[in-house]
């Protein structure tokens, strides 16, 4: 079943938590990639985290994405313990505490992180 999160156009960031080993994973699958258990609980993330890496894209490859340059592709370590890729404000720096909202990008809904002050 498709998750009801941003990847399917819903304003949510979902992840899976393993009931057997306790690990969390972001890329959805039918089993825990750490221990193989199928006992997974689907959870909704708070959208809060810390910036791990950033890259502002100025050379995009398609007409749809070119309309958005420059856009900041970021990796965020969420407070739930998984890492995710998203968009972010162009002034974000590594280590910033951030919170997600959602925005439109190239015809899709994407998570967009901004600094918490």
């Amino acid at each position, binding site marked *: 079943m498709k998750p009801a999160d941003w*990847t399917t156009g819903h304003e949510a960031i979902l992840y899976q938590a393993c009931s057997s080993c306790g690990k969390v994973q*972001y*890329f*959805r699958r039918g089993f825990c990639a750490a221990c193989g258990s199928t006992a997974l609980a689907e959870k909704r993330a708070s959208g809060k985290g810390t910036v*791990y*890496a*950033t*890259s*502002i*894209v*100025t*050379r*995009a*490859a*398609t007409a749809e*994405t070119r309309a*958005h340059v420059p*856009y900041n*592709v*970021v*990796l965020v370590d969420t407070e739930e313990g998984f*890492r*995710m*890729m*998203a*968009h972010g404000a162009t002034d974000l720096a*590594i*280590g910033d505490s951030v919170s997600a909202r959602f925005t439109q*990008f*190239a015809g*899709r809904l*994407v998570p967009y992180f901004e600094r918490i002050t």
Partner: protein
Amino acid sequence: MTYITGVGLTSYGKHEGLTSLDLMSKAAELAITDAGLKRAEIDGILCGYSTVSPHIMLATVFAEHFGIRPAYAHAVQVGGATGLAMTMLAHHLVEAGVVKHVLVVGGENRLTGQSRDASIVALAQVGHPDYEVPLGPTIPAYYGLVASRYMHEYGLTEEDLAEFAVLMRAHALTHPGAQFHEPITVADVMASKPVASPLKLLDCCPVSDGGAAFVISREPTNQARVKIRGCAQAHTHQHVTAAPALSELGAEISIAKVKQASGVSIADVRYAAVYDSFTITLAMLLEDLGLAKRGEAAARVRSGYFSRGGEMPLNTHGGLLSYGHCGVGGAMAHLVEAHLQMTGRAGNRQVRDASVALLHGDGGVLSSHVSVFLERVR
């Protein structure tokens, strides 16, 4: 024991009108001739892939086209690590007695066969289809992310990264087959168009047409006695989102494994051939492999350590950054150049001593790693 008995390399850049098969054939012909063999003596074929002309059976398409009926043939796909992964597989196939002479070949008309946009889109698909690709990342952006973190943790600057582009260009100037022949400076790199921060245009390898090939054999077939001393791989992830910490990447794992398996140490190495899709790739891999201390690779470039006349000549053909990058063949050029250096055939680029070489390839976003030691024997 196995030996690299022949190598072949086309010029990189534009080969208007040539297909991927044409470029593979040119390189294969050169490699077989270099080994002093006939087509009929080749009993194994390993080839890469072509993003311009994808095929589910490229090795047999090539074998038929080239006129070989091999006893063993298939394609291999691990992105930029493909060339060295094929080398490792050929080594084991020959050592196991499955075949006597394996032709390893890669070639693609990536520059003239499709638009640059199409190349960028095709390559960005190494990203996760649901969780990464919809965000519009490009390969430079994946590496830009890694670069931002590496610079943050180890204090590298954009000027440091630029040094690697300048070094590769300086080397390319001495090779007639290289795609670029204009010298560049650190200031030129810094002033080049931003692509995906912190990477600018001159931090990125170009898209090229070209082909490369080599033959791996049970016994030497000529005076070029370059022995494969050992090979190892490591695969820690596919997607940059799932990559481990910078201190736990695959290059450190594969180099540790190959050192242990072969008994060769970094102190024995006289020539280095290291994957350089971006300046950050080269900086990180040199440090991961132990060819420079953490955060000090750029200082070693500035001091001439990696120059043709330095202690550890590196990618003397100009690397992906300036010789060019035609996909699978891209990093195979590193091995061809190492072989020419090891056999004293590098002409005006010849280094003093290339008796032991370390080769390292990286595929994906530092996802797949292959390390190889080569040694010239008398």
